[in-house]
């Protein structure tokens, strides 16, 4: 028995060492893809609640499976990035992540806190056989040179690329030109924030019967912003004001942020300005003649305007007006800055490298021209490859804007053209574990100020101090990567909970006890 004890101790030690090690071996590209085996891969896809986009995913899967009959792709549909994020987090802990997943880089940064969870793609990009434009691919994919560099760069987290871009969009301002001109203004080619505030306040003039003079209705919200996260982020960027460092140091609580909130505040009080969260979709108000400036994603352009192919309001509520599309307002129109956004695709690591390679083959297939062009045409999306952007079929599509109110709906194609013209003016915010929370916090400050003013509350210096404190605490911005150890570090999880510390102490004491008992037993021998 005594001889058995050291062996038992060794086994226990090995088991203890294994426990808690959730990390997966680093993925290495296999020399050959083993086409003699069958693979079942799961693809978590996001669509904009758009049946055509679902159809395109399904066709892509079917076309891919025809080329690679041994790879079967099972798709799970989402319409909300937050739901994907939550489900992935849950599945990381159970080791049941999907193989291929549409994600935002902000979210991927959090996934990376699990060791080896997401596959770094640089090795796959460069692989001669299976990489971008690789010689052994069974389809005509883009080469590295044919990826739009800005979009690819957005998928870099630290030193590696952890995703490929799938589609890109930005935001645009959809304007009721008829009403702007009725108020005595011309819509400029380049909007400024001052112009929007001025026209929005002017639009609030009322008739003696209490209706708004510009639309003759009881309801009017001249300026509605869909994503206040983007609103704050872009305003700060345009003013070259701090937001965060690439390492994750939070810098948003600064005087410029405060000034911006003070600027927005009176327009929230007068109700010249509101938000999606407070009032509803900008498109619904725009199309009902109850909004002059609706800012939303270019990927929402098919909802915007009198003749929009998609609409949520009853036909008898739609008002006829002329719609124009502009870039978002700027502080310095000579140097426009606008956000780049849209879905990217990441690959989760698995124990079987061949399964990962199969996942990569499918993910890369999403970059082929047929998929890129078809999907981008469903909304105001831009293909992420120059190969697709320069394809004659795509060039022809762009040239036919306004030919009809469906496939060639003018607002959609103008929104796309806007991003194509301004790709060099786009930016993204730094990605780190916690950057998704910072993004939420940026928008929430605008929401809070708007709600407070609508409710007759005072927004002053003291209010701002309280707001900064509240948002910092609510979004746990003092617990982001930079304050602890940088992106992807194990320290990102914060200090050990008291119970864990207690368990470790008990474990240590038990080992000490065993050691003492064993030494004493040896001594007796």
């Amino acid at each position, binding site marked *: 028995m005594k001889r058995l004890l050291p062996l038992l101790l060794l086994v226990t030690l090995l088991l203890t060492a294994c426990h808690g090690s959730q990390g997966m071996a680093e993925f290495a590209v296999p020399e050959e893809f083993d086409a003699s085996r069958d693979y079942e891969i799961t693809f978590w896809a996001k669509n904009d*609640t758009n*049946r055509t986009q*679902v159809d395109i995913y399904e066709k892509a899967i079917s076309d891919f499976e025809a080329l690679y009959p041994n790879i079967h792709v099972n798709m799970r549909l989402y*319409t909300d990035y937050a739901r994907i994020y939550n489900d992935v987090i849950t599945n990381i802990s159970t080791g049941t992540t999907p193989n291929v997943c549409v994600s935002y880089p902000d979210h991927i940064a959090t996934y990376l806190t699990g060791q080896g969870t997401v596959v770094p793609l640089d090795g796959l990009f460069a692989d001669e056989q299976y990489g971008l434009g690789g010689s052994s691919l069974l389809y005509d994919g883009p080469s590295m040179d044919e990826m739009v560099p800005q979009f690819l760069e957005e998928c870099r987290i630290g030193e590696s690329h952890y995703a490929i871009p799938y589609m890109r969009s930005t935001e645009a301002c959809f304007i009721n030109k008829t009403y702007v001109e009725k108020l005595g203004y011309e819509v400029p080619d380049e909007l400024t924030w001052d112009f929007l505030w001025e026209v929005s306040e002017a639009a609030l003039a009322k008739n003696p019967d209490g209706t708004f003079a510009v639309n003759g209705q009881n309801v009017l919200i001249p300026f509605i912003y869909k994503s206040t996260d983007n609103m704050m982020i872009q305003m700060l960027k345009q003013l070259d004001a701090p937001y965060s460092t690439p390492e994750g140091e939070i810098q948003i609580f600064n005087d410029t942020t405060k000034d911006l909130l003070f600027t927005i505040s009176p327009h929230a009080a007068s109700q010249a300005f509101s938000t999606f969260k407070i009032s509803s*979709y900008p498109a619904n108000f725009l199309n009902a003649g109850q909004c002059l400036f609706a800012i939303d994603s270019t990927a929402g352009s098919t909802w915007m305007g009198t003749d929009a192919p998609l609409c*949520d309001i*009853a036909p008898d509520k739609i008002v006829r007006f002329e719609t124009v599309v502009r870039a978002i307002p700027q502080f310095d129109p000579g140097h426009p800055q606008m956000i780049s956004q849209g879905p990217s695709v990441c690959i989760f690591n698995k124990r079987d490298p061949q399964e990962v390679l199969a996942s990569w083959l499918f993910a890369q297939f999403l970059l082929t021209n047929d998929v890129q062009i078809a999907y981008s045409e469903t909304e105001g999306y831009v293909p992420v490859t120059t190969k697709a952007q320069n394809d004659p079929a795509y060039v022809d599509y762009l040239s036919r804007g306004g030919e009809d109110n469906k496939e060639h709906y003018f607002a959609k194609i103008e929104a796309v053209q806007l991003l194509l013209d301004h790709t060099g003016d786009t930016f993204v915010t730094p990605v780190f574990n916690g950057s998704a929370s910072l993004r939420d916090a940026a928008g929430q400050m605008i929401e809070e100020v708007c*709600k407070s003013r609508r*409710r007759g509350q005072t927004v002053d210096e003291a209010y701002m101090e309280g707001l900064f404190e509240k948002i910092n605490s609510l979004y746990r911005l003092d617990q982001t990567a930079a304050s602890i150890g940088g992106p992807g570090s194990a320290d990102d999880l914060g200090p050990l909970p008291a119970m864990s510390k207690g368990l470790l102490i008990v474990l240590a004491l038990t080992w000490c006890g065993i050691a003492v008992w064993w030494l004493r037993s040896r001594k007796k021998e």
Partner: protein
Amino acid sequence: MKKIFAVLLALSMVFALAACTSGSNEPAAEPEVDIFAKGEGVMTYAEYAAADLDTEVTVETFVQATQSWWDNTITAYTQDNEGAYFLYNMACSEEDAAKLVPGTKIKVTGFKSEWSGEVEIVDATFEIEEGEYIAEATDVTALLGTDEMIEHQNQFVAFKGMTVESEAIYKWDGSGADGDDLYFQVSKDGQTYTFTVESYLCGAGTEVYEAVKGLKAGDTVDMEGFCYWYEGLNPHITSVTVL
């Protein structure tokens, strides 16, 4: 004999007195509690309906149903004997969420708001009070397409003898999957309406969710649910019976 009679009489008196005493010990009938009576500082439904948007409101109401608890908030369909209140994303711990069973009386303070035509209370907090009430479904079939329908907004209502126009789809355009909201169209007197099975209220696996998935065009159905609004009537259905 007289002595015996006197003793019997005395005993009778004792018993009679005892009976009287025991009778007087019975608890007095409790005065009927009006569970709908409003406490101090609490609005009646009429006062709530008249309040401006963005003003602070305090109401006492009874939970009729809740959506799934999420991130320390809960969305509740509530009603008293005068009207209904939709409580959107009310602050609520997971522990308290378990107490919000149908019938529970709560006192709610929040801000009156409107989102796409749906009048609701947002940024709300609540406390549980004594009392229980579950509303009967009001048959509003005859009000479909009339301006009166909005007066029943958020109430538990019934629609009788509706005709299914199309099979249910996941999400408004069929772009979702099993487990997402179900949308289906029903008609009455030549007018078509979009009804919803809200997945956070009655998700996959619930009787109504599975029943609606099985509806066929041409079916005649009776339905119950909450008179929710999104750019017009958009009831959240909780039960369906194929006739």
